[in-house]
């Protein structure tokens, strides 16, 4: 039921559409503002937060250095614990493996724990094509699925919806997916939660196959870890007879003790809680307790490509907390859909191009530019991913990928600017020309303080003057002033 982002326009176009939606902007400003304040409060309580960030980043970097060895160790431990380990090179392979497990058990439905990896590979659509319904059981994912909508946030996929909209979706859609919404449902949050609980309960009790991702995979003990807030995930992890978990290969940590730092960093960064409410761990099969058939699909799908990128590989540290989304001034205004991926916001602006490569898709190539490089994301990232630096590096990759062909107007402009800025004499001439133009252009309007201003520029300049006045170029540049009088001004 959940759609995919296939065919989304490039970021500036998608953003323009989102910016025109006043309701969306109000919902987002309210929601991100609330989470931001909660995070800031609980992070402020931790005296050694910066040291903890360093530890988290260092741990992930060490794992990535010997990723192959940790993965082999993980496979050994999982197998010893009774799990079946599968390796998936790409999304298609991973979806095929999950579908085959479901079909082997003759089911036409599975229940799902909220999982970014399965969203990323489009598992729901792949299963639907095989006649298998994949029911999302996370409340927000349920809202997105019932509304035939797209997720717009990593942690809170329905962040773009307010409670009145959610009530309408429940009343309209629950009946066609299972138990209908109770009669007379209001938009009171407790009533909405109760409606979801009743709707989901029959699915939990009926489903034979559960599907999850994992936040962490402990190599030493062969333990998968799922961190969630509702307890719905735990229902899926314990009630079905069969459990399939799709796990990105970057999720591995060497030992149980390594969870310590991440289980502190994650909830405070993500939901703004001191401790995570439901943390489920399982190591293969435990006879008589929980799923008796356990599969683990270790997913590459571009991760080894990211690992090969010297600047971008730090993105593999990401623990999907979404702190970067919540502080991002761009995300706050455009929302997640504009990024055209299940990974929106600053992390999405680097992760999508890194996973899939640049130079072949206009939408992907537009993402590294979907940032003012303000650095707020880097400041809050619990594993210190320097997102602005990765964005700048990806921009260079985008430009390099398009070198050689017919240059775009932007490339011509940049080469012209570089030529001018390589010799100060050339810059002096350009400034003189601008000063002359300014005498004509600046007659129309005046800035506070008395300086002339330009109200309307032609061509690409219209992107500036559409909403902003531009000071008219001054009659005399600084360097001209310096030559005329500045060098000796004030000397006796």
């Amino acid at each position, binding site marked *: 039921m959940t759609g995919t982002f296939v065919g989304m326009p490039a970021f500036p176009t998608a953003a323009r559409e989102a910016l025109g939606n006043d309701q969306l902007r109000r919902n987002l400003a309210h929601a991100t503002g609330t989470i931001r304040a909660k995070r800031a409060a609980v992070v402020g309580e931790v005296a050694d937060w910066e040291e903890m960030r360093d530890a988290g980043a260092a741990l992930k970097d060490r794992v990535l250095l010997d990723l192959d060895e940790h993965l082999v160790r993980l496979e050994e431990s999982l197998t010893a614990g009774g799990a079946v380990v599968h390796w998936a090179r790409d999304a298609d392979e991973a979806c095929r493996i999950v579908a085959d497990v479901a079909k082997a058990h003759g089911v036409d439905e599975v229940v799902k724990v909220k999982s970014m990896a399965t969203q990323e590979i489009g598992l729901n659509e792949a299963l639907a094509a095989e006649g298998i319904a994949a029911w999302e059981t996370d409340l927000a994912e349920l809202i997105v699925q019932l509304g035939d909508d797209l997720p717009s946030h990593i942690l809170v996929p329905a962040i773009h919806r307010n409670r009145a909209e959610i009530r309408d979706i429940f009343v309209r859609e629950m009946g066609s997916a299972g138990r209908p919404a109770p009669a007379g449902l209001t938009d009171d949050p407790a009533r909405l939660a109760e409606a979801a609980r009743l709707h989901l309960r029959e699915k939990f009790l009926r489903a034979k196959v559960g599907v999850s991702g994992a936040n962490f995979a402990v190599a030493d003990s062969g333990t998968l870890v799922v961190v969630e807030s509702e307890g719905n995930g735990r229902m899926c992890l314990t009630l079905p007879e069969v459990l399939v978990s799709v796990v990105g290969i970057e999720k591995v940590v060497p030992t149980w003790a390594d969870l310590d730092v991440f289980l502190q960093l994650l909830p405070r960064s993500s939901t703004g809680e001191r401790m995570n409410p439901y943390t489920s761990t399982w190591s293969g099969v435990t006879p008589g307790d929980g799923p008796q058939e356990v599969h683990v699909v270790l997913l590459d799908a571009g991760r080894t490509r990211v690992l090969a990128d010297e600047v971008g590989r730090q993105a593999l540290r990401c623990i999907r907390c979404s702190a970067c989304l919540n502080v991002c*001034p761009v995300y706050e205004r455009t929302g997640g859909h504009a990024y055209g991926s299940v990974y929106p916001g600053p992390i999405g602006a680097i992760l999508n191009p890194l996973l899939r490569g640049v130079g072949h898709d206009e939408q992907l190539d537009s993402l590294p530019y979907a940032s003012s490089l303000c650095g707020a994301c880097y400041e809050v990232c619990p594993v210190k991913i320097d997102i602005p630096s990765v964005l*700048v590096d990806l921009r260079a990759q985008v430009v390099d990928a398009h070198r050689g062909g017919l240059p775009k107007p932007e490339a011509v402009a940049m080469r012209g600017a570089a030529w001018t800025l390589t010799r*100060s004499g050339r810059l002096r001439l350009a400034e003189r020309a601008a000063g002359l133009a300014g005498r004509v252009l600046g007659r129309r309007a005046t800035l506070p303080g008395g300086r002339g201003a330009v109200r309307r520029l032609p061509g690409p300049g219209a*992107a500036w003057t559409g909403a902003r006045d531009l*000071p008219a170029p001054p009659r005399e540049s600084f360097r001209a002033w*310096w030559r005329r009088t*500045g060098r000796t001004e004030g000397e006796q």
Partner: protein
Amino acid sequence: MRVAVMVTCVNDAMFPDTGKAVVRLLRRLGVDVEFPEAQTCCGQPMVNTGYLDEAVPVVRTFVAAFEGYDAIVTPSGSCAGSARHQHGIVARRSGDPALEAAVARTGPRTYELSEFLVDVLGVEDVGASFPHRVTYHPTCHSLRMLGVGDRPTRLLRAVRGLELVDLPGAEECCGFGGTFALKNSDTSVAMGTDKAERVVGTGAEVLVAGDSSCLMHVGGLLSRQASGVRVMHLAEVLAATEAVAEGVPS
């Protein structure tokens, strides 16, 4: 100590008064400041748009202009950040070890104006007077890339006659972002509009910041909205010696 002013291409071509203010302010504080005329730009517009090859000759020009100075002072957090944090990337791209070595020397000697005043000269009261109600926007690169902290507001608080009012959400980006302002102009304007609204809400006569490009963006919106709020660079306020009326608290 040989001190050079890196005026920045934006100030040179568009905001010469900011450059003049830096020169006058530093001379007033006894610094014999030079303007190496070979200077042009730090290269950031190319780097941040992805044109690294194009940035190489610009960074070479920077190094040629500023090598040999003990301190390079610039009225821009963004350009100081570029010299300190991005020139290494460009130099590595060039494959020229001599350029790498050169930027490793010029980068650490580059100071944003408030850093130079507070850290190198050790002054907070620069002898300015500016009897106006102002609010201050900490620009992203000065705040998060350089970490200038409260140096600019310490300098402003020491200005005679100046009333500094808090800007709500001050640390949020104004939306300029270099070519972002053109490539994603709708989002840039949406961010700037919120910033301008908060500035107007403070009741300040003047919005002050340490980067002319951010001021050009927010100022352009304030002007289009006929808000009456003027934008001024920190350097111009610190250089000002307007008469303060008797009885106005300093």
